[in-house]
């Protein structure tokens, strides 16, 4: 439509300039560094790369990263959908406060999150004695890494789902209620299909954030190779040890996971004409 409006039409050179700027910006910031990493990774040859990403340490890091991301996605999806429902449909005192609280993990630096977790769950922390007596170790162990990952990736699903819920309104849910559907049936047959693209997008963002998290995880990890080292921590360690080829290879794995996630999102992308 806008192309029909003469006032908004941009001249041909202006359009090309805009395109050049947008693509150039992306290239400098994103494509060139990523390309260099991939190039450097495969420079020594595919066999070297394979050997480097299949060492026991790398495999363990890969598994830990997937475990933390998997738990974060499941928990934050359930929590996110519930929170969005409460925030959009609920009317209660303190709703705005909760609304702001959900964004806290965005606002707080990950390193602060890590330190806060140590203060609460660490040996000298609030629950330190209780946990130690029960034989549970959280900090410098995998549960701490999971906690940190869950925390930093918490807002995505809620933030993606809430606007969708607001937009669809509650007419459909009320109609379903008058037709005899229980709350459970309404949620699964009406609400969930209506917000599914928001949930999917939230899951993708949660996954990407969980896999890429470095700061908070670094603080609570303890850097025990083969035990509490995630992929990002492995990259850092190899980099610090001047194992550049190894660092590039592990980075490439991270980049590939990110690309696969993005690709999944593109394939899942809602057909905009549906609504």
């Amino acid at each position, binding site marked *: 439509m806008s192309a029909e409006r003469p006032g908004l039409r941009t001249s041909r050179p202006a359009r090309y300039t805009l395109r050049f700027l947008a693509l150039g910006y992306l290239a400098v910031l994103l494509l060139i560094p990523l390309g260099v990493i991939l190039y450097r990774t495969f420079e020594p040859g595919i066999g070297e790369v394979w050997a480097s990403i299949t060492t026991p340490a790398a495999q363990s890091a890969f598994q830990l990263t997937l475990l933390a991301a998997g738990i974060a996605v499941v928990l934050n999806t359930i929590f996110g959908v519930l929170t969005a429902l409460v925030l959009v449909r609920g009317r209660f005192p303190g709703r705005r406060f909760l609304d702001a609280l959900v964004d806290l993990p965005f606002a707080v630096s990950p390193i602060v999150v890590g330190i806060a977790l140590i203060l609460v769950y660490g040996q000298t922390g609030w629950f330190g004695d209780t946990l130690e007596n029960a034989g549970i170790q959280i900090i410098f162990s995998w549960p701490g890494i999971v906690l940190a990952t869950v925390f930093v990736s918490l807002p995505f699903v809620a933030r993606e789902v809430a606007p969708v819920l607001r937009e669809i309104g509650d*007419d*459909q849910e*009320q*109609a*379903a*209620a*008058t*037709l*005899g*559907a*229980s709350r459970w*049936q309404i949620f699964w*047959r*009406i609400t969930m*299909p*209506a917000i599914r693209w928001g949930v999917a997008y939230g899951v993708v963002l949660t996954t990407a954030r969980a896999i890429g998290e470095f700061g908070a995880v670094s603080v609570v990890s303890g850097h025990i190779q083969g035990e509490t080292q995630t992929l990002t921590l492995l990259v850092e360690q190899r980099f610090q040890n001047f194992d550049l080829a190894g660092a590039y290879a592990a980075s490439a794995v991270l980049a590939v996971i990110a690309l696969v996630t993005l690709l999944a999102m593109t394939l899942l992308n809602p057909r905009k*004409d*549906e*609504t």
Partner: protein
Amino acid sequence: MINVSNVSKRFGDFQALDDVSLVVPEGSLGALLGPSGSGKSTLLRIIAGLEAPDTGTVAIDGQDSTGVSPQQRNIGFVFQHYAAFKHMTVRDNVAFGLSVRKRPKPEITARVDELLGIVGLSGYQERYPNQLSGGQRQRMALARALAVEPRVLLLDEPFGALDANVRADLRDWLRRLHEKVPVTTLLVTHDQEEAMEITDNIAVMNAGKIEQHGPPRELYDAPANAFVMGFLGPVATLDGALVRPHDLLLTADPREGAVEAQVSRIVHLGFEVRIEAELADGEKVWVQVTRGDAELLEAGEGDIVWIGSDAAAGGTTVPVPEAAPATTEQPAEPAV
């Protein structure tokens, strides 16, 4: 049958309903008519169980339903903006109520096809709501509401989001549908023509109260007060009384009981002609006459005429209230 007894409802400081009682007879088609904010939608939603009254009771078919959830009331509800389930086909939309009741598949299929036939949407089974026009979506919503064989059908401004000509068609259609499927129906509308045209009974609402309840003609001919008179049709003010502009007689010569006025504007609306005139005290009056009468009168703008009530027509008058009624202005152009 719907029995509403002494229902009140507040939203914060706003008194949405103030001790309202209403009976909708079995099998009838009734309307709640009123301006926005008069409480008509709130009353409908309370009957549906989508809102809870602060005080008072609602009974459906003699059973007290006040504390019953909307799921258990066995009602059909149609929303102004269709509330179509966008991710389901027309078939699945209409089947929804039966499918949550776990009826056998063949029965559901047969019932859906039958209903789509009744609402004129045969052949649209596999479409999605966004592939239907507004009128078709609303007919689908009606079929969906009727599928569960509700005891009462509640329609909240069902034609409010539609174009004027589609609205007129659907009104006729709803009336005929009601004759075919005579389920007790209550319709909320702010359009007096819509209410007059299709319903058996109208409850005129204003500021959370029912001003008058009765058949359309009774309300039109014997309005209980200035509000009802003003809301149901055009009114003019003459001699301290509200009177229908078509009950006024306009003559070129002086006449007993008539007052002198100067024609200020003549509007031709096809068969109907509206003549606006200014009285000696500056007050404006408008008179509705047929085209034939206007031609006989031969009055032009600026001419002096005499206006009085038409004794032969036996018109209705209501004293002008202290506060101005909601509608004393000329109504908008009638929908064609």
